[in-house]
C-alpha cells in the first residue's frame, strides 16, 4: 500500500504513465464526443412536448453530472495532501478547481438556456439544484481565490486542501438544506426538474454517451493541466531538464 502510494506520489511516474495513456484517452474522448454530438444534433428525435430542445438537455445533464465530481475529487486530494503530503495530489487539486468552475459555469449556462425554453425564465430560485450549483460555483471560486491569494505554494496547498474538505461537507449540507427549504416553501414553482422529461431510449442512450464523454474529457483536461504543473514544479529535477532539452 505504502509503496504504491509513494510510487503514485512521484510526479515522474505519473507523468510517464499519463503520457502513455493520454493518446488512448484522447482518442476515446474524441470518439465519444463526436458520436454524442452528432447523435444529439442529427439523430435525436424531437421530444413530443418540447421539440428539438432535448438536444440541449443531453449536454446539460452530462455536464451537470460531471461537475458534481469535483468537490469529492478535491476533498480526497486534500486529505491525501494533508495526511501523506503528496505533492501530486495537490497538483491535481489545484488544476481541478478551475476546470470544476468551468463545468459548473457551463451547467448553469446550459441549464438557464434550457430553462428559458421550458420554464420561460432563465433563472428560478425555487429549484434546489440550481441554487446548490450556484453556491458550488461560489465555493470553487473561493478555493481558486484562496489559492491565488496565498503565494507560498506549500501553504496554499494545505490551506486549499482544508478548504476543499470543509467545502465538500458544505456542498452536501447546502444541497440538502436547499432541497428541504424548497419543499417546505411551497411557492408556486413552475416545475421541478424531473416533471416532464423527454423520454425514450434514444434520449437515454445519447445522454449515457455524453456522460461517458464528459468524464473522459474531465480526465483528459485534468491530466493535461497536471502535466503542465508537474513540468513547472519539477523543473529543476534531472528528468524534466532532460525532457526539456529533448523537446
Amino acid at each position, binding site marked *: 500500500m505504502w509503496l504504491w502510494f509513494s510510487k503514485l506520489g512521484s510526479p515522474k511516474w505519473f507523468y510517464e504513465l499519463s503520457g502513455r495513456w493520454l493518446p488512448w484517452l484522447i482518442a476515446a474522448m474524441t470518439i465519444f*464526443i463526436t458520436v454524442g*454530438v452528432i447523435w444529439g*444534433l*442529427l*439523430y*435525436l*428525435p*424531437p421530444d413530443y412536448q418540447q*421539440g*428539438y*430542445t432535448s*438536444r*440541449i438537455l443531453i*449536454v*446539460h445533464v452530462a*455536464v451537470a453530472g460531471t461537475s458534481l465530481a469535483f468537490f469529492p475529487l478535491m476533498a480526497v486530494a486534500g486529505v491525501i495532501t494533508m495526511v501523506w503530503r503528496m505533492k501530486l495530489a495537490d497538483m491535481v487539486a489545484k488544476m481541478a478547481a478551475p*476546470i470544476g468552475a*468551468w463545468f459548473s459555469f*457551463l451547467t448553469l*449556462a*446550459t441549464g438557464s*438556456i*434550457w430553462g*428559458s*425554453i421550458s420554464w420561460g425564465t432563465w433563472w428560478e430560485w425555487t429549484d434546489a439544484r440550481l441554487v446548490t450549483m450556484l453556491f458550488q460555483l461560489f465555493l470553487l471560486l473561493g478555493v481558486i481565490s484562496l489559492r491565488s491569494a496565498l503565494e507560498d505554494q506549500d501553504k496554499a496547498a494545505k490551506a486549499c486542501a482544508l478548504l476543499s474538505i470543509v467545502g465538500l461537507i458544505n456542498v452536501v449540507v447546502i444541497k440538502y438544506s436547499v432541497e428541504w427549504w424548497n419543499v417546505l416553501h411551497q411557492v408556486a414553482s413552475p416545475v421541478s426538474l424531473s416533471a416532464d422529461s423527454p423520454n425514450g431510449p434514444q434520449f437515454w442512450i445519447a445522454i449515457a454517451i455524453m456522460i461517458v464523454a464528459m468524464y473522459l*474529457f474531465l480526465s*483528459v*483536461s485534468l491530466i*493535461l*493541466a497536471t*502535466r*503542465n504543473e508537474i*513540468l*513547472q514544479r519539477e*523543473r529543476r529535477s534531472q528528468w*524534466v*531538464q532532460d525532457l*526539456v*532539452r529533448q*523537446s
Partner: protein
Amino acid sequence: MLEAIQFSSFSEFIHMGGYGFKIWSVYGLFAIFIAANLLLPMRKRKQILREQKRRLTINDEISRNI
C-alpha cells in the same frame, strides 16, 4: 443511417423548430468549453517548455563560461 436523421433540410437543421439560436448557442458554449480546456493547457505546455529551454541554455552558457 441517413434516414434516421431528423432533419429534411439544412435550414431546418439550423432552425431547430424555432429554438435554433438557443440550441446552437448551447453547442457553441460547449465547443468553446471543450476547446478552451484542451487548447489552453496545450499552449501553456509549449510556453513552459520554451521558457524552461531558454533558462537551461542560459544556465549552460553561464556554466560554460565559468
